[in-house]
């Protein structure tokens, strides 16, 4: 999921992006792997730009950031609603990766006292006390994926990507009703898992 190579967004015209999104909408997962590095790079750039403005009172949620990436990449190419949802789906995946990575690094840092390399250190900070829970949620999500892949995907889209029920339904090609149902079950299930693991922090949370 991490960007093996960083293709610059400029390398791709916005037409290419539209094509990628169209492919994605049709279910071509290859397209996602092309999009991820672009989104990743943009996320970092925009986050960095915000931070350089040094406005301590400025807050933005990550999903707003994702939105801005979207606007920047897609502004010249009005795309349809479904494509937009698919874009956010990719972004949700990227966000999850970045955040969980960051949370792990933060926890390692806290334990070891050493200086960890945090890709977005200067930019994205969730309340540090959330590190533990984020890592836990991520781990539990991996488990949930084994039980019910679709539910795990729904959580990723909704929680990390901030997608609405309707958008989530569009991405997964299921009904909003199903999304709502699965989301409730997944929430309940995850809640239970997190309660169980409460107290066991990082040690058990490997890359499973």
């Amino acid at each position, binding site marked *: 999921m991490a960007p093996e190579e960083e293709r610059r967004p400029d390398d791709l015209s916005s037409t290419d992006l539209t094509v990628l999104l169209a492919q994605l909408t049709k279910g071509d997962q290859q397209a996602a792997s092309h999009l991820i590095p672009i989104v990743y790079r943009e996320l970092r750039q925009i986050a960095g730009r915000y931070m350089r403005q040094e406005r*301590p009172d400025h807050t933005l949620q990550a999903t707003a950031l994702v*939105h801005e990436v979207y606007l920047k990449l897609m502004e010249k190419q009005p795309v349809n609603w479904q494509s937009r949802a698919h874009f956010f789906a990719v972004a949700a995946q990227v966000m999850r990766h970045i955040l969980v990575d960051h949370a792990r690094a933060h926890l390692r840092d806290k334990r070891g006292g050493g200086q960890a390399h945090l890709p977005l250190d200067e930019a994205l900070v969730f*309340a540090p006390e*959330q590190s533990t829970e984020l890592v836990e949620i991520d781990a539990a999500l991996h488990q949930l994926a084994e039980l019910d892949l679709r539910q795990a995907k729904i959580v990723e889209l909704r929680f990390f990507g*901030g997608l609405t029920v309707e958008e989530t339904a569009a991405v997964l090609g299921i009904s909003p009703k199903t999304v709502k149902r699965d989301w*409730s079950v997944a929430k309940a299930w995850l809640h239970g898992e997190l309660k169980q693991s409460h107290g066991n922090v990082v040690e058990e949370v490997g890359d499973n």
Partner: protein
Amino acid sequence: MATSSKKWETIKAVFESAQELSPEEIAAFLDAKSLDPEVRAEVGRLLAEYHEAEDFLSTPPVRLVPSASSPSIQQNFSPGEILGERFRIVGFVAAGGMGVVYKAEDTQLHRFVALKFLPAAVARDPQVEARFRREAQAASALNHPNICTIYEIGRHQGQPFIVMEFLEGQTLKRLINSQPVETELLLKLALEIGDALEAAHAQGILHRDIKPANIFVTQRGHAKILDFGLAKLVGRTSEPEEVSASAPQHSPDLHSRDFGDAAANLTIPGLAIGTVAYMSPEQARGEELDARSDLFSFGAVLYEMATGQQAFRGKATAVVFHALLGEDPVPAQQLNSRLPRGLQRIINKALQKQREARYQSATEMLADLRTVAPGRPWGLIAPVAAVLLLISFMVFRFIHPQRSHALTEKDTLVLADFANPTGDVVFNETLKQGLAVDLEQSPFLNILSDEKVNQQLRFMGRSLDQPLTRDLAGQVCQRTGSKAMLLGSISNLGSHYVIGLKAVNCQNGDSLDEEQVEASRREEVLTKLHEAGTKVREKLGESLASIRRYDVPPEQATTPSLVALQAYSQALRNRFSKGDPAALPLLQRAVELDPNFAMAYAALGTVYFNLGETTLSADAVRKAYALRERVTEREKLYIDSSYYGVATGELEKEARIYEEWKETYPRDQLPYQNLALYSSLLGQYENAAAGYGKALQLDPNNALNYLTLAATYINLNRFTEARATLNDAHVRGLEHELIPWVSYLLGFLQDDSREMNQWNSAASIQEESDDFLLSSRSDTEAFHGRLRNARDLSGRAVAAALKNGEKERAADWQTHGALREAEVGNFSQADRQASAALALATGKDLQTMAALAFARAGDESRALAIMRDLNRRFATDTLLNRYWLPTIQAAVEIARQNPEKAISTLQAAEPYELGGPPVSLDTLYPVYLRGIAYLADHKGDAAAAQFQKIVDHRGRVANCSLGALAYLQLARAYVLSEDKKRGQQALQEFLALWKDGDRDAPLLREAQRELAHVK
């Protein structure tokens, strides 16, 4: 956990069906299904988790702030522990990103206080602490009853904490709880919040994070703004600030007595940070903030109080962000039709994306807030210049005198919602609606109208959306003094349905009747319900003859389609709770589902009419009329009256329908209102007063009934009674947007300058927002010959109407002004204004008045062109063709110097010439023009008789400038008949009225010359 995928699917399915049950109901539900023990256990566990999880995962996990890597260590104090040698911990209250709050007792001053700590790690940073102190100091400078007071800053083991006022109550967020706040409370809180912001801004302190969670409502109902501690001093934004986590953050329900909320907050990863939804666009963009940014957030809070919904919503922050940067929220009044109009405007202004377009200061916003009166002055048709059409849904049900039985003629019945354990939601509202339609055709039964049920629920502080259960129906029944309630139920019996109806005396609990019928199919349910309903009618005492006469079964009336009936029922419900726009899509759907659904078309016609879509309204009403064989008697009356009122404009036919309606259902107020209007149009004000009085008696909680009755008394020159009627409305707390205007006119007529001044000054406080009053004040000026002032006020009325988004009305004021100019001889001015009005809007009434203005200004060709167009488009419209068009034609003939033709043309208008809607402008024109024509024809006596009518109808004319001009014309008529004495008197009368008139007004000079001549 090893769960097979098949089991997992079962688990999900069972979970879903049990999800909405309360924890208490779950066990029984699960027990009832013979489930695999593992599945049973897992579903039970998941449901428990689900209820515990609440808004777990409901907020996105991160916020973007400058990095502040600091571990969080929660302070942990136990009750009894003493901090700073003074504060004894009572208990933990809440925690959030900005720290932890405890309730403590001040052992020196013996009062409770709240202690707020920063997260320890954050506080350990000396720079952060400095900032924290600075902010606390800034906020402690604020001494205001509506700002949570900061007493001091304490220190415990090196950690600073803020000592502040301990509040009991709840946050506004909790108070709103997705429901609109009662207007009265809303305004009270709004004034307090505005006042607090004004005070803070005056000291250069911004809040920066105004939102419902940061506003506390005390038990006594006062607002307290929290967390001014996060404010920064204005003007210091450019200074580089310490890196900290001190960005505006979610504030937990500080001090809330509800600890559950706080606890939930603690478990959420990623507390909702600096909730984007209330941010001003500039804040979202990271620009510098100023007082206007707080006012934007305040506007968003007002919006939420008014509607129960966030102004900028979205599951994803991105969506919210997008909305607040670029989209206008759904107008609040669409979501809450009872919202005072002034408040809607204030919210709109506060939520402007550009700061320059918003309120520039809290003081300014506060001034506007103070002018908003609670009440429900929204959604009424402004009766300007033309007919006031009163159409409302058929919600009035009454009964015939009949032989005494279970129910007597005075007894009222409350319909409860159906108990529906079938799980088939289509039955939820439809059965009640179906039964209501069915029972309402009976002239014997008196069913408590939805309006009155809602009114009662509001009195009881209940939500209008909740089902009227047996308990609730019982309470409503008792409180309204109704006799009985009708409880319905539907349940499954294998593949069959069992429908039950039970009538219970709500005063003593006696069962009056119980019926049960069985339907073998879903499609049969409505028919069977009808059977049961008919039996209930009989048992409750209705005569068989009456039942036979008023007994249209649902498949022949209403609709046989359950889903169409469902859409229709929801539409009616929405219309009551949210207003016309909310009903529209559902009605459209209802007629899609059943294209023969006459009542749905009729309702659509009414909704379109109220939304100003007159063409669509007429189309829908015509469709309803074509299908009117498929309705009950009552529905037919409704459709017929709408048809003649809206589609054809045939007054007499409309009146006949209302007569019939009154005969059949003598206790409905609607026919009385509309027949009274008809009398008023014919100038039969005594009859009108009787009719309006009867309507008022039938519905004494309807402000319109007072308004129309008072206006009718004014038309009868019975000013004392008019005043008393308005007072009655006032005493009952009833408000109507036209009441200030009518009171003002009454002040004018009774020569009560205090009364007028009261409205004058009220209007000036309102920053020119009441265009009715501004226009009426312009009339008063014109009446006294102060034409320059009149013009100025007219212009302001037009501007105010435009600002209120009321284009049609702005144009109305403009044509009204144009006509006035024409009457004093300023023809070019009149022409210009009428043209400008037509550029603004084009309605039938507007065109009519513009044509008259053109004709009076001598612009015949334009007048005639409009007349032809109107005549072609509204060929059957009685008032247009028999009153207005002849009047305009007469004006044209006068301009062409054909007075005789003018007089004969005006014959058509005779039946209506002294009439008009109770509240209206520009009345008695046919009389005035006939007088002018007689003058031109050198018939002094005949002319004098006409002008004398105007003088005699002083109440009707009120401050319309014709009232003053009539004296001048009367004088001319007398002079023509060689009656110099009376001519002189009338001239003096006129000159007295115009004594402060513009010196250079040509008419004034003419009058003075004429007077000199007569002498």
